[in-house]
Each structure stands twice: as C-alpha cells, then as structure tokens.
C-alpha cells in the first residue's frame, strides 16, 4: 500500500498560540482514517495545511506524493473537502453550488449526483439562505461524494445531520472505500469513527498521541472488571497493571491494562468467582483518557460519568 497523506513534525503558530506542535499523521491509500482530538487540538489546522490554505512553520507534509502548498491546484483536482460549517452564497441554489464545486474539481458524475440528492433528501432548488445547518452540510457532502476524486477530506462533516442522514453518510463513506478512495475523517461522533475507520489518529495540543487500528488502541487501554468472589481477594493490588482497585468484602471492582488481564483473572479464580463482568474499553473511554490528561477537575467528573454509562 502507498501512503496518501504523510505529515511529520508539523509546526504551526498563530501569534503566541502553538496550534501544531510537531504533529505526525500517516494515512494509507484506500483506507478510512479517523482523525480525533478535543476541540482546539489542531485538527482543522492540520487539514488547512493539507489543503494548502495555511503554510506550516516547520515539518513536512505530502499529499498524494506532492507538496500541498506548491502543488495546491493540481492536488485539488484530485480531492474533495467538506468543512464542518458550510456557508453558501445567499442567491445561489444548492444545485448550482453542487455543480460549481463539481466543475471546479475533477468533474461530477450526474447520475451519482441525482442518486445522492435523493438519498440525502435534499431539495437542490432552494437558495443558500433558506437551508438549515444540516441541509447546508448535505450540499457540501453531495458535491464531495459525487465528485470524481481520489481523496476525501472531511472535517466534522456530519454536524447538524439527523441520525437517518448520519446513516446515509456512513453508507457513502463505505462506498467511497469500496471504490478505493482514501478518506480522512475528522469527527467527534465516536460511533461513526468506530463504524467507519480502519485506523485512527488521536491528537492533543497539536501533537499525535496515539495512532493505529482500533484493535491496537484497545489493547493499550484498560478493561474494567467487577466480580463477586467466594472469599475476600488477596494480592490483587500487587499485580502489575491494576488501577482503581476497590474491594468491599467479597465484591471487587478494578481497571486493568488489557494486556495484563490474564494474571488478574488467575488471581480472582484463586478466591473463587461467583459472578464476573468484564467490559472492554469503549472508544469513548479511550478517547477520554487522552482528552483528560492534565486537565484538572472537570475530566475527573467526566470520567465517573463515563464509567456510570
């Protein structure tokens, strides 16, 4: 497999704000790559650098083997971009905007355009100001999915879409993958990422903190275990990888690094297991773990909330 997007050591400052602080990103051709991070982590800044709208201060970025700044126009014939907040011209109809974007890219497949309008239930005759937020997103999504391009760059593209449309969106991304297109999907909708993405990169404060397949990432995080034992446990706290251990008589709750699960189970069976639930980490927990690091009190509250769910 070739690499569609390579970013290494990317730096970008706006005044005193360091938006990107040595960011790395690698997206293989033909994969759907999830791009995750809290607000202000630098996702949109990275995407703007990849689109040649911003010039990086330091570091390297290659898009489809070329330089995103110098070869912007040639590259843009081969990609489609959907921003998180689409603004339209007030006196142009949605259909006109879709065609305009198509013509300004590599071209538009008319049959696919018609099919997408139907699936997204979008009226193309409305003027820009008459569309709701979700419908403005649909205009950009139809234009992107109907374009004949190799790469889709989607920056929180489903904000404002209802769950039915979210499903249509997921189908469209799936079809794009089947056609061999590469998708970079920045998103906060974790179910969407979980359903669509082959690999994900998590960034925080302008740096990549985790990158790999979801299975890889799960492996790095903790499984929560709660058990009702025949006798009070012993030695659990000495085991490596055990966190947040709480023992109330014969009831045990703990978190364990997923690759250290085996010794914990052995230790538990020694005391006799009456019941046991073990929950693999959700993407949300994985996510929160990275979002929360060094953020003070609020995340702690969020963590209990997440655990309660």
């Amino acid at each position: 497999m070739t690499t569609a997007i390579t970013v290494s050591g990317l730096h970008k400052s706006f005044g005193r704000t360091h938006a990107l602080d040595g960011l790395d990103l690698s997206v293989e051709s033909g994969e759907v790559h999830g791009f995750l991070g809290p607000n202000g982590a630098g996702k949109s800044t990275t995407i703007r650098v990849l689109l040649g709208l911003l010039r990086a201060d330091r570091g390297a970025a290659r898009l489809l083997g070329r330089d995103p700044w110098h070869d912007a126009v040639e590259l843009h014939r081969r990609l489609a971009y959907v921003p998180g907040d689409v603004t339209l011209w007030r006196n142009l109809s949605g259909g006109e905007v879709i065609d305009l974007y198509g013509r300004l890219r590599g071209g538009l497949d008319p049959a696919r355009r018609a099919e997408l309008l139907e699936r997204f239930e979008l009226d193309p005759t409305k003027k820009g100001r008459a569309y709701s937020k979700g419908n403005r997103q649909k205009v950009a999504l139809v234009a992107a999915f109907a374009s004949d391009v190799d790469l889709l760059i989607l920056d929180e593209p489903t904000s404002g879409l209802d769950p039915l449309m979210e499903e249509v969106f997921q189908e469209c991304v799936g079809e794009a993958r089947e056609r061999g297109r590469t998708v970079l999907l920045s998103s906060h909708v974790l179910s969407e990422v979980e359903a669509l993405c082959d690999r994900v990169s998590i960034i925080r404060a302008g740096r990549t903190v985790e990158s790999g397949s979801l299975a890889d990432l799960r492996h790095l995080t903790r499984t929560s275990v709660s058990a009702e034992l025949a006798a009070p446990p012993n030695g659990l706290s000495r085991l490596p990888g055990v966190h947040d251990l709480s023992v109330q008589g014969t009831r045990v709750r703990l978190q364990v690094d997923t690759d250290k699960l085996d010794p914990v189970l052995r230790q538990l069976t020694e005391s006799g297991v009456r019941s046991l639930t073990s929950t693999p980490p959700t993407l949300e927990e994985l996510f929160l773990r990275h979002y929360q690091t060094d953020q003070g009190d609020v995340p702690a509250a969020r963590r209990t909330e997440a655990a309660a769910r």
Partner: protein
Amino acid sequence: MSALAATRSGSSHLTGAGPLTRLALRRDKIMLPVWVYALSVSVVSTALSLEKLYGTAAERADFARSMSANNSLRALYGPVLGDSVGALTAWRMMAFGAALTGVMSLLIVVRHTRDEEETGRQELLSSAAVGRRAPLTAALCTALTANILVAALIAGGLAAVGQGAAGALALGLAIGATGMVFAGVAAVAAQLTESARLARGITAAVIGAAFIVRAAGDASAAGGRSPLLWLSPLGWPEQVRPYAGDRWWVLLLPAALTAAAALGAYALTARRDLGAGLLATRPGPAAAGRALRGPYSLAWRLQRGTLLGWLAGLAFAGAVFGAVAHGAADIVGDNERTQDIFERLGGSHGQAGLTDAFLATITGMLGLTAALYATGSVLRLSGEEADGRAEPLLACAVGRLRWAAGHLVIAFAGTAAVLAAGGLAMGLAYGATAHDISGRLPRVLAAVLAQTPAVWALTGVTVLLAAALPRYATAAWGVVGAALAVGWIGPMLNAPRWVMDLSPFGHLPKLPGPVGSAAPFLWLTALAVALTAAGLYGLRRRDVG
C-alpha cells in the same frame, strides 16, 4: 426589562424591547454618532459658509433670485423661500439632508430587523423572554433616537450660530421627521423580503422615487406650489417652510405616515414566521447553467446586481447634474467668492470657463463616488474570506490568484463602466439642454472617464489591504473617506496644495479643460498596478481563512 415585564398583561409582545434597544445602541455606538454628526455638522457649516459668502442682505437677495429662476437648480435643491441665511441654508440642505437622514434610518432599521433574522442571531434572542414585536420596536426606537439627535443638533447648532431658534427647530424637525418616515418604510420592507439586501434596496428605491417626485414638482412650479410636493415625503420639509413662516402643522404629515407604516409593519410581523418574508423567495434552478463554471463567472454572478445598481445610480446623478450644468454660469452669478470656490474646485477662470468649472466639480464628485463602488467591490474578497466561503473554493482546483482576479476584474472594469454611465448621462443631459449633444457629450464623457486612473489608484490600496492584510481590510473605507474629505471639503477650506496632493484626485487636471501632460494618468495607473501586484503577491504567500 423588569418594568416591562411588570406590565405584562397587555404588552407581552413588547417584552424585551428595552434591553434590545440598548443592545442596538451599543452595537451602533460608532455608526450612529458618525451619521448624526456628519448630517448635523454639514447643515450648520453650510449656514456658516453661506454667511461668509453672502454677508449682506442685498447679496443674499441677488443670490436667492438667481437660484429661484433656475429650473434645474430648483429640481435639485428645492425652492428658495427667503433670503435670510437660515432660509438659504434650508434651501441648500433640506432635500439632500432629509434624503440622507432617510438613508441613515433605513440602514439602522434593516440592520436590527431583517439582518438579524437573516444571520440567525434573532432566533437565539427570540428564544429568550423577548416578545414578537420587541425587535421591530427596538429598531424603531434606535432610529428614533438617531433622528431626534439629528433634529436636536441641527436646531441647537443653527440657533447657536445665530440663526433664529424657531426656524432652526422647524428645519431640524422637518429633517428628523422625514428620517422617521423612511424608518417606517424600511420597517415594512424588512417584513416583506427574506433578504436584508433586498429590503435595503426597496427602501432606497422608495427614497429615490420620493426624490424624483419632489424634483419634478419643484421644477414645474416655483415657490413650492406644485401639488406633487404633497405626494412625496421629501416634498414635506419644504412645506414646513423653515425660516419662511414655519408651518408647524405640516409636521403632522410625516408623523402620521410614520405611525401608519409602523402599525403596518407590526401587523405584518404578526402574520409571518421568524426568518420568513411575505414575498415568497422563488426557488432557484436545480442545476447550474453552463455559464457558472469558474471563479470569474461566480464573481460576476455575485456582483452583477450591485454593479447594475451603481450604474443606474451614477447615470441618474450624471443626468441630474448634466441638466443643471447649462445654467451653471447663472448659479454662480456675480458672487466673487463663489466663483473663487468653483474655480479652485474646477480650475478654470473667467465667466466662459465657469460652466467647465462646474462640470469639472461634478466630474470630480462622480470620481469620488465611483471610488466608493470600487472599494465595496474589492472588499467582497475579504467578505468571502471572513464568511468562510473562500476556503472551500480554494480547496477546489482554483488558485488564489484566479479566485481574487474574478472579483478584481469586476472592480476595475466596473469602475470604468460606472464612470462611463455617469459621463454618458451627464453629457447627454448637458448636451440636450444646450442643444449641442454631438459637441458636448464627447468632452464630458472623456472628462469623467479620465477620473478612472485616480479611482484605480485608490482601488489599488484597497486591493493591497484586502488581499495581503485582510485583518485591516476595512481600513480601506478610511482611506477612501479621507480622499472624499480632501476632495470635497478641501477647496472650501482653501486647503494647502500638499493636502490636496494626498488624494490621487488632486493630481488630475481639471477636466473638461486643457489636459496638459499625460504623465499623471500614466503614473496613477502604474501605481494602481503596483499596489494590486503587491496585494496579490501577499495573497499568494499568506495563510487563508
């Protein structure tokens, strides 16, 4: 709000009007004082300069007689109703002052009603404890505040410089009340359309029509006796006759029309949904036509309406001034100081050159007006960028230069087109009144078109700001405003040469007249090219979005 909430029973529709009015005044804290100051100071300073120019009663009587006799001038300014300084000030400023106060009111009202709904800000506000009628009430209260200030400052200012207090109050109230009429018209227009731009256009067209009806009435009969004057709200101020009898009861007319328009607007508000207009917006085409295929056709599509409006506006102004020009020698008459001012503005000497001097003055004004068009047109670039519409376009296969060029071609070519329209209309009207179209039209048209390089030089500054330094793009209005101030007010104040030279217009020969060297045209054009190139160079290198 608590006071309003307390009287809830009958007026819950108005709940929140108080805080909304304060919000509107706070948002307008720069725009509103600038308008009020400019309108009132221009009236008071006119009185001062008239007093200086025509110090004796005999001079004023002579001036008033020659003004009254000239049909074109009556059409432009209205009738001269007396020969006191106050009456002459009213004559000179009333029609334009009232129309401009109307423009101020329309901008205020639409900005706080339809603009708020169109951008979606009103939705959030209306979800709070805000009654259905509160936003319109707040907008009208803001307009009322502005108009009261205009009336008070005109009345107070004229009284303070020694013109009679009663006449001063009549003039102030006549202008302020007319402003409120158009606030009412704007309130209705804002209910009709979904687009703020269209609401502004409708109200501006009503003001224009009112001006034409008044001008026709004044042209047809001297002394304000035409019945047409009673049909136009812009004819009412002269019926008030400030400094010439002060007919106070006439003020009831604008008050009644304002009240009727406001009630109509309230009734319309009650019948429609938030964000909707009463005139349904027609659906657009489901697919783009062949023509819409690149940055040039897109820019044309976005700017053509505005360009057509400016073409019509400058053609109208050119025709009006062209029609007056033939009598210009009579206007200036024997008064030496007025001749002097015209000569400084227009550059020519002697009675024979006076018409040329007048034409040159108007030509310069058309040039300055065209600069306003060009600035607005170039600033579409920064508007597109700030509103987030440039980013997805530039993420298509559209280079930055092509994107910018689409708008810049329209700005530069549109400047020439707008000047050509003004020059053509002025030349035709002047030629028709002088019965010599073939002789006068080419001279006038060439003179107006010769302004183009100076407008382009100013436009170049705007391009540099909008393309290379978008954060400071609005400073372009300041640059154009300074050029306007130097060009319009400088000659009156007898400003030194170096001040006049700060404006690119100061370097052009006074045309029509002897052309002299071609050098200024060439280097102004070169300056425009250099500034534009510098702006585009910056655009290629900077971050976008």
